[in-house]
């Protein structure tokens, strides 16, 4: 070989090698990496250029047993609805997990939720696929491509926890080779709302209830009863659980609507031992009242021991009295001596008790002169003080209408003596700046009481009245031309009123009873407040029908036990020539206020 050729060959070898390498690499790459099917390519394209080699094979037998493949989940199993830390599942409530799976052989399948990532598939008994640990739930047999749903009751894991992992398997119902898929915990295990684990809510615990601030008055808006329930709730995921406390006045409570009867109060707290406060209505009977505490948490999970019960105590409060009116606000016109005593009343339309009007059991009263010692607390004296016992105080019928009524009307009555101190503006009356008042004290069944006196008084009017004990001036028999000498006919004037009394005396002529026009003139009569001999009388009547005011000694009576009276003595002269016979006349005794002798 010539050298030139050798040299040429020598020069070409590297190029050849490089080109060969490139071609072989390309061919290998296409074949192995790109999966370029030359045979198919040429076969499909029916290339007229490249013809496939035809292989002449020898006879060889191959066998393979294709096993049943488990169904596969089309998506991720998911909680419906998702349990979250803020929306956990109450123990005892149900949780639903769904997933859609497809089976290559079109077998139906089960969705089985296990507590661990392990399931024992039962090849021949598709109803017996069981979790290695706890089977939370299993769906009914579900056709391939259809969503399977399993719903199971959530229980508290051991040890107690607020979450519990779940693993979803889908297992088919192949007759001989039933199998289960690998597990799935959802799309985002540990973080996704609808993925494993599920969140568990535990019930709050109620161990008791008590009234920690007790014994209040009715209507205690400013000082409430405080009821504290001993409660705990250890759930903290998503924030500590709120415990809702309901205090009901009767047994009966609904988790969504609360007390079925009266609710005293309710409150919430994330801390143990929830309290709530309430006030009673008014009126409220003084008694111990039972109440019932119900507890739930914010997820409407009620305490297992609902309810707890205790009592609160409403205090007895004293009755109050106001608007006391004496004699209906009218001045009092007394009855005079000899009459039945004046019937006086004192009343209050506002005798109230915040424990209810039925709590009021009795009342007493006093009608009194405003200047009497001790005023409302004065001692019995017909002149100025009239205590009225409870027997004479009555409740106006129908004024107490039951337990919801705080108020009633009391009327007390007594009789006032004729000599009760007058307080009107009679001339000279030293008591005219005073008046008469009344007070009422009401007692409840515990002996507590309230008292009020009238704001406005009334006047007792001056009563000027008299009586003359004798029906006639008893002159006896006197001859004409004679006088009565030292014999005095006596008349007794009795003070029948409540004022000092003077007597007005008006003497008429005396007519002879035979109507003969014979008269004994009035001026023949004399009278005095002490005995006298005719001719020395203090008052000589000068003419008929002229009233003389006699300053008798008849002061204002201060007791009914003693008559206040004074005598007027009379003398008469029978003028000469008066025919014998009976002469008739009238002397009028007039009650006059002795205004300078109060």
């Amino acid at each position: 070989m010539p050298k030139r050729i050798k040299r040429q060959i020598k020069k070409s070898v590297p190029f050849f090698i490089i080109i060969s390498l490139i071609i072989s690499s390309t061919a290998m790459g296409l074949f192995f990496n790109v999966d370029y099917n030359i045979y198919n390519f040429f076969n499909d394209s029916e290339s007229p250029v490249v013809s496939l080699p035809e292989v002449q094979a020898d006879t060889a037998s191959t066998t393979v047993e294709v096993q049943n493949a488990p169904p596969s989940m089309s998506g991720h199993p998911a909680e419906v609805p998702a349990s979250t830390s803020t929306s956990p599942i109450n123990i005892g409530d149900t949780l639903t997990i769904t997933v859609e799976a497809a089976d290559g052989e079109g077998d139906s399948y089960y969705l089985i939720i296990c507590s661990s990532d392990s399931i024992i598939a039962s090849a021949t008994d598709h109803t017996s696929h069981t979790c290695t640990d706890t089977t939370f739930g299993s769906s009914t047999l579900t056709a391939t491509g259809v969503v399977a749903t399993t719903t199971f009751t959530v229980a508290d894991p051991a040890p107690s926890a607020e979450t519990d992992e779940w693993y979803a398997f889908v297992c088919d119902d192949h007759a001989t080779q039933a199998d289960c898929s690998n597990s799935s915990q959802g799309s985002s295990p540990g973080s996704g709302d609808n993925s494993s684990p599920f969140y568990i809510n535990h019930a709050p615990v109620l161990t008791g209830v008590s009234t920690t601030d007790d014994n209040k008055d009715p209507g205690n808006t400013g000082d409430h009863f405080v009821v504290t329930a001993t409660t705990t709730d250890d759930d903290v995921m998503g924030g500590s659980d709120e415990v809702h406390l309901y205090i009901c006045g009767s047994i009966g409570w609904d988790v969504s609507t609360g007390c079925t009867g009266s609710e005293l109060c309710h409150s919430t707290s994330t801390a143990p031992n929830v309290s709530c406060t309430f006030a009673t209505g008014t009126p409220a009977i003084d008694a111990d009242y039972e109440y019932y505490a119900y507890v739930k948490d914010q997820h409407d999970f009620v305490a297992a021991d609902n309810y707890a019960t205790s009592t609160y105590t409403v205090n007895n409060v004293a009755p109050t009295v106001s608007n006391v009116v004496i004699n209906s606000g009218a001045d009092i016109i007394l009855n005079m001596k000899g009459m039945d005593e004046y019937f006086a009343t004192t009343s209050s339309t506002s005798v109230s008790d915040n424990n209810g009007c039925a709590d009021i059991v009795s009342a007493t009263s006093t009608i009194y002169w405003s200047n009497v010692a001790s005023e409302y607390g004065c001692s019995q004296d017909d002149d100025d003080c009239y205590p009225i016992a409870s027997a004479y105080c009555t409740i106006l019928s129908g004024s107490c209408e039951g337990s919801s009524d705080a108020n009633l009307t009391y009327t007390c009555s007594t009789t006032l003596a004729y000599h009760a101190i007058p307080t009107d503006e009679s001339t000279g009356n030293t008591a005219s700046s005073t008046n008469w008042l009344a007070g009422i004290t009401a007692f409840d069944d515990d002996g507590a009481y309230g008292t009020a006196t009238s704001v406005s008084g009334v006047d007792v009017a001056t009563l000027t009245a008299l009586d003359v004990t004798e029906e006639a001036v008893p002159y006896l028999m006197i001859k004409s031309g004679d006088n009565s000498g030292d014999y005095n006919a006596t008349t007794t004037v009795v003070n029948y009123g409540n004022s000092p009394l003077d007597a007005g005396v008006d003497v008429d002529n005396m007519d002879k009873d035979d109507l003969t026009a014979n008269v004994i003139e009035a001026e023949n009569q004399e009278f005095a407040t002490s005995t006298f001999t005719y001719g020395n009388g203090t008052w000589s009547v000068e003419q008929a029908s002229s009233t003389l005011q006699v300053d008798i000694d008849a002061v204002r009576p201060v007791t009914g036990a003693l008559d206040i009276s004074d005598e007027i003595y009379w003398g008469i002269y029978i003028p000469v020539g008066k025919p014998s016979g009976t002469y008739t006349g009238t002397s009028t005794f007039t009650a006059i206020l002795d205004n300078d002798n109060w």
Partner: protein
Amino acid sequence: MDFFDILMNWKKIKINILLLIIIFNCFVLAQNAQAGFGISPPYVKTSKPIFPGSHFEQRITLLRSSADEEMEAIIKINAPEIADWITIDNGEVFDLPKDQLRVPMVVKVDVPNKAEIGNYQGYINIQIAPKGRNQGGGVAIALGARIDIDLNITNETFLDFTVRKFDIPDFEMLKKPWSWKIFSMFFYRVKAAITIKNTGNVKAAPTKVSLEVYDLTKTILFESSADKKIKKVEPFTTETVYASFPTKLEAGQYWGKIKVYKDEAIVYKDETIFTIRPPGGLENGTKLGIWSWIMLFGIVSFILLIIFILIKIKIWRYIYKAVYIISWPLRIVWKKIFQTWKRIKKAFWRKMHQKAEKYKKESFDGKELKDDEDE
């Protein structure tokens, strides 16, 4: 003892018998003395001087301690200067009926307009006597009483009064239509009955009456209001007047605290409980009076009148046009909202259609593929 001595003794015996008879008679007469008599009050006077031209009445009660028989009272006015000012409602002679121990009489005083300023005094004597029966022999005793007249005439004004009592009667919530606000603001009111004694010589009424309404524990004040329009009371008379206060209270029991003012001074204050009953809860019902019906009639008439006028002046078309013009922005907004809603709806259904087509196609392809595989 001779005949003369016997005769003299017989005369002494007769005199003694006669004296005994007289003494016995006096004793018996004393036992049968007529009943006592009195009056209350024993005066005609006013607490304050009165004006010329004034009218004044004094009620005086005549009392007998026994009324076993009918008697008559005879009135004699002994007041020379003022006798013709005075009249007695019963007349100057009137009966005191049997069994009636207390008989009222009213002394009316009408002071002439031209009466001179000063003090006038006098008496009214009352004598009672058995009606239609003569006195027996001797000097009989009759009873009477004297009324002192003491009138001060002045041209000076005295305004004064006292409150004798007050009460807030229970009332009920109003039924419809009276519970409607237009009526309730006028007719649903707390009323306080105040008994006022006018002790002055001119008409008088409280300057103001205030009311505070509390709950039964007296801790929560619900309402507070005042009434300055209180009816005036005639001089020297006692009358119950009413203060009323608008309210919005519900049925229940409340404390009402009242203050009565004379000028700026509080002359009376007290408190009472009152009850507001639910509609229909008051036994005798609520009488709103004629004014409520007049008001209802007035409102209905007014509405009818307006309608009539509107019809009459054919104003409806103008109102329609005015509303049409005024509401153009609203109409535009409404149109836009409607169009937007239509677009959204259209887009939604288009999307749904596309999805349906897509699913349909996929389903068809899948089925074809399966068929191929089966083949």
